[in-house]
Structures are given as structure tokens and as C-alpha cells.
């Protein structure tokens, strides 16, 4: 028992630290790394909650694949420190306060809730709980539709990414008249109305 508690605290601290790191670190590159750490910590928590499969997925897919993509992009566009600017300063100042307020509200919600189960280890479940088998059967039966839809969503996302990021004839060539394009989006010939 004590071991699990210890693990929880360690993981929780890790998760929070990672999260804070994402927010406070000025360099996006470090932010990404912080997020990786955060994700791993989360994976540990998942384990504590007997979600082995998810923990694995978290580490492999998320902390692995997705973050790598991030790193590539950051490398591509060159993550630069951002200096502070006046505009939106107010938001930057008050934002955290409101966010904290929201968090407190959530905590109150949890604390005030009348559900006894909250203050328990949770229902006693068999060893199969959270196993790939169980997840799989759920995916194939009860949650078939979301599963399929999600897979289709991946396809859509891929297409979208292609649309957005594909090198396109005409963009680079017209770099020189970027400035003009700022106020006058597209232009070739004059039109009388």
C-alpha cells in the first residue's frame, strides 16, 4: 500500500512539474521536453489506476510519436524565446488567476460531491480490468462506432495536414510581394463593378 502512495506522490509531483514546465519555460523546445516528462508521469498514474494498456499507449504513441513530430516542427521553424509584449498583457496577468479560480471550483465540486465511491480505492475489479483484451472487446463491441470514427478522423487529420503543409506552387515564388499581400490578399487584374 505505502508503495502505491509513494508512487502516486512521486508521479503527481512529476506530472505537475512537467505541466508547469510546459507553461513557464520560455523556449518551446524545453516546453516539449517538459511535456514528455509530464506524459510519462501520467503513464505511471494510469498504471496506479490499473489502466495498463493506456499507460503503454501513452508512452509509446504519445510521448513517443506525437512528441517527435513536435520536435521536428520546432526544429523546422526554429523555436525562439518570446519576449514579453504589452498587448494582451492584461490577459497574461489575469489569466492564471481565473484559471486557478476554475481549478478551485473543480476541487470544490469533487470535495462536496456526495458520492462515497470518490473516497475509496474504487470498485474492486478483476485483474483483467484495463487489459488489452478488455479494451479490445469494448472497442469492437460497445464502442465500435467511436472507434471507427476515430480511425476515420485520423485519415481526415492526415489529409488536413497535407492540405496545410504541402509545398505549393506559387507561394515561394511570390515571396517578394509578401508585403503587398498583407493588405491586398490576392491580386491580378482590375475589376469594374
Amino acid at each position: 500500500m505505502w508503495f502505491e502512495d509513494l508512487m502516486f506522490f512521486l508521479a503527481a509531483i512529476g506530472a505537475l512539474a512537467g505541466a508547469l514546465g510546459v507553461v513557464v519555460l520560455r523556449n518551446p523546445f524545453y516546453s516539449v521536453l517538459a511535456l514528455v516528462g509530464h506524459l510519462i508521469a501520467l503513464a505511471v498514474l494510469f498504471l496506479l489506476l490499473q489502466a495498463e494498456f493506456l499507460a503503454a499507449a501513452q508512452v509509446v504513441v504519445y510521448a513517443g510519436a506525437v512528441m517527435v513530430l513536435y520536435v521536428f516542427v520546432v526544429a523546422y521553424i526554429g523555436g525562439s524565446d518570446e519576449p514579453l509584449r504589452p498587448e494582451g498583457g492584461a490577459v497574461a496577468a489575469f489569466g492564471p488567476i481565473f484559471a486557478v479560480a476554475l481549478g478551485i471550483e473543480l476541487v470544490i465540486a469533487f470535495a462536496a460531491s456526495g458520492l462515497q465511491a470518490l473516497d475509496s480505492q474504487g470498485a474492486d475489479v478483476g485483474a483483467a480490468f484495463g487489459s488489452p483484451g478488455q479494451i479490445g472487446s469494448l472497442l469492437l463491441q460497445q464502442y465500435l462506432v467511436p472507434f471507427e470514427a476515430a480511425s476515420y478522423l485520423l485519415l481526415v487529420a492526415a489529409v488536413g495536414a497535407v492540405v496545410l503543409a504541402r509545398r505549393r506552387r506559387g507561394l515561394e515564388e511570390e515571396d517578394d510581394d509578401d508585403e503587398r499581400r498583407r493588405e491586398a490578399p490576392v491580386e491580378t487584374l482590375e475589376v469594374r463593378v
Partner: protein
Amino acid sequence: MSLADVTAPVIDYKAISPLLATLGGSIVVLMVGLFRGPLVRRVLVPALTAVSLLTAIGLVIWVWRRGDIAPVIRGSLEVDSLALGITVLCCVAGLVAVALSWRDNAVREAGAGEYHSLLLGSVSGMIVLAEASNLVTLFVGIELLSIPLYVLCATELRRRTSLEAGLKYLVIGSVGSATLLYGLALVYGATGQTGFAQISDALGDTVPLGDPLLLTGVALVATGLAFKASVAPFHQWTPDVYQGAPTPITTFMAVATKAAAFAIFLRIFDHALGLLQLDWGPALSALAVISIVIGNVGAIPQRSLKRMLAWSSVAQAGYLLTGVVVGTRLGLQATAFYLAVYLIMNVAAFAVVVARERVSNRGDDISALENLGQEQPWLAWPMTIAMLSLAGFPPTAGFIGKFYLIDASVSGDYTWLGIAIVVGSVISLAYYLRVIAAMWMGRYEIELPTVPRRTVKPASGWSPEADALAQPEVLVVAVVFAALTLIVGIWPDPLFDAARDVGTALSNLS
């Protein structure tokens, strides 16, 4: 446990056939789009898209059933008349978008195949959302609806505002869906169920009705959905995104997204959380009033027609919300009815905007409409009718729709919401009438803007000198939907029948 005990669920293919039509359509279009070439780009792809959408509509009519029916596929989808009705609306919106984008730059930028398949993807998302009957499907549906739209908003990559719109929509949209997700999580946590039916059973049973956990979840869910429906104070993305996005996409977003969002609004609040009406009723009605006020006052100073329509759509969302708030069958019917009306009149208006912004060197600024009455009555009349309808004048659909909504709110003991609708409509006159004045009453007092004379790149295939007839498809859309506005205003019975069928969904309503 082995695969042996995994029994594949029974799938009612007939019921989900419309969804399959759009899904399949998007794949096919994507594939066909890979073949470059003008014929494919300009003709084949749009045609196929239209076909798949029409098929979907046809299938809906085939599937159409009154009354509440057993959910298909283990309660993931609820193919009832509400879902089907919304499906039709979304498909119509899709068709319109196809027609309007035919000559649009966005298509060429994004590539016809990708563009249209994303469009269909979004439509599918809406269908899924409308049919969703458990939390997971709901969330997937919403994302499937949104993600293609993020992309489509940004497709005019040469236009800074388009990218800005995409970015803003993505960021705010993700915040919204994160909030929604957390809310769903809390609801799930409070009830231990994902299926709507089970949730409504669990209310008061496994969890007390007033439980803070549950209610906080409801609050977050409401936020997430209100965001999608662009209900104030979660509306701020709307004007910017509508203005920045390519106009055909704006049209699609404006009408279809709202339809889907309100479908799920109705399903979750009037069905799953129906028992909590006493708790969320006041909150949602407050939101409704705020949207009505903010949307209308926000629209008044706008010169950009798209932006003006965006603000007005915020107000319209407020009107629609009243139908949800009352939580009665009449409310459900009124909302469905008004969604249809809203689609008809907005499409007419947006079509005209598309037509003008392509030829006018003032873009979508209101001054682009100046003297349209004399120069191009065939564009001026649809716009006029649309504006009158939005303002709620008889004998247009808008009047009947508002009448129905007020009727619903009064019968649901929310008379003051009816008054709010009325007051909102009065304020809205200020900007709707200005548009009409611009078209018919010369340049009087519509001081011309100082916007830089913008030079226009004509979409391929037509001469900029030509008048509206150079883009027949846009003209047809405008005229057809304007005519519909009038027809529905004068002979609304068919639409009412449909609304009544829709009303037979959600059996728990009184």
C-alpha cells in the same frame, strides 16, 4: 479471455446508410482528387461530392421513421427522426457549399479532392454528432466535425486573414473541446455511464440530482456545446472566423455547425439530463438572453457583411436556445423548425455575398451592395428577402419561425424569453434594414468606406466584367433559397409536418 467471446455487434446498415454515404463519398472523392486535371478538378470531384450528399438525403428519406427507435450498434448511435432531420439540413448545407465553392480560390489552393473530402468529412462528423447517443460518440463527432473545418477555414493560404481564422478557430475550438471533455468526464464520473439513456436512468438513482460533481460536469458540457453553437459569451471566435474563412465555408459553418450543435444540445439536455431541467433551465436561458443582446448589438456597427451575419448568427443562436431551454416537445419542434428556416434564409444571404465579393472591388463590405437594386435585381431581391426574413417580417419563413419559438417559450412558461426574442428582433432591424437601404435607396447616408480599392482575381472560367449571370450556380442558389424563404413563409405546412415528425424523437419529453 479469448477472441471467441468477442461477438461482433449487430449493425443496422439501413439505419446508418446516410452516414455511410457521406463517409464513402469522402474517401472516393479524395481518391479521385488525386488525378490532377481541370476536368477532374472542376467537374468530376464536385459532381461526386454532390452525388454522395444527394444519396445521403435520399437514404434519409428512405430511412425516415417517426417516433423513438431502438439505438443501433449497442447504443452508440440513435437514428431517430431528430438525427435524420438534422442530417438532411447538414447535407443541404454541404450541397450549397459545393455549389458556392465551385469557382472559389480555396478549392484551387487546397486541391479539389482534399477540399471536398474534408467537406464531406465534416458533414459526416455532423451526422455522427446528431446521432450520437453516448458520450464517447458525442466527443468524436464533435471533433470529426471541427477538425476539417479548422483546415477548411485556413485553406486560402495566400490570404493572411484565412490563416488567422484557422488558427483562432483551432485554438479556441480546442479549449472548448477540452472543456467539453472534462465536463463529459465529470458527468461520466457522476453517473458511471456513457450512454445517454443509462445516464438519464442513473440520475437520481446512483447519483443525487443536486450533486455538485454532476452539476459542474453539466456546466462544462454546456460550455463546450454553447461554444460550438456560438452562444454568448462563448461566441467571440464567430465573427473573426466567419469573416476570415472562405465565404462558402462560412456559409457551411454558419448553418450546418449550428444545426448539429443544437441537435446534440437537444439530445443531451432535453433527453439525457432532462431531469435536471430545473437546474440548467435558468442558466441556459440566461445564456440565451445574453446571446440575443450581444449578438444584435454587436452586429450593428459592422460594415463587413460576413461579419454582420456572424454576429447575427450569435443572436439567432440565442433565439434557438430558447427552444432548448423550455425542454418541451413543442420546444424541440420549434428549434428544429427554426434551424431549417435559419438555414434557408442565411444561405440566400451568403450566396449574394459570395456573388458580390467576387466581382466587387469592395469585397464583402456593405458598400459592395450599393444600388444593387437597379443593377442586378436578381441578386438584390434574394438579399432583400433574406434580410426581411432574418428580421422577422411576414410573409417570410423568419416570421413563422419566430412565431413558433415564441409560442414554444410562452407555452413553456418562459414568456419573458419570448419578450427577449422580440426585443432582440427590434434591435436587429437596425442592421438588417441598413443592408436593404444600401441596395435600394442609393448612397444616402451609407457613408462609403475608406477601404482600399481591392483588385480581384477572378475565379477561373469567367470574366470579371460579366454580371451575376457569370456565376449561374451562385445565382441559382440565391434565388432558390429566397423563393423557399417566401414559400415557407406562406405555406409552411410541409415543414411543420417534418418538425412534428422530429418532435416524435426524445420520448421522454412532455
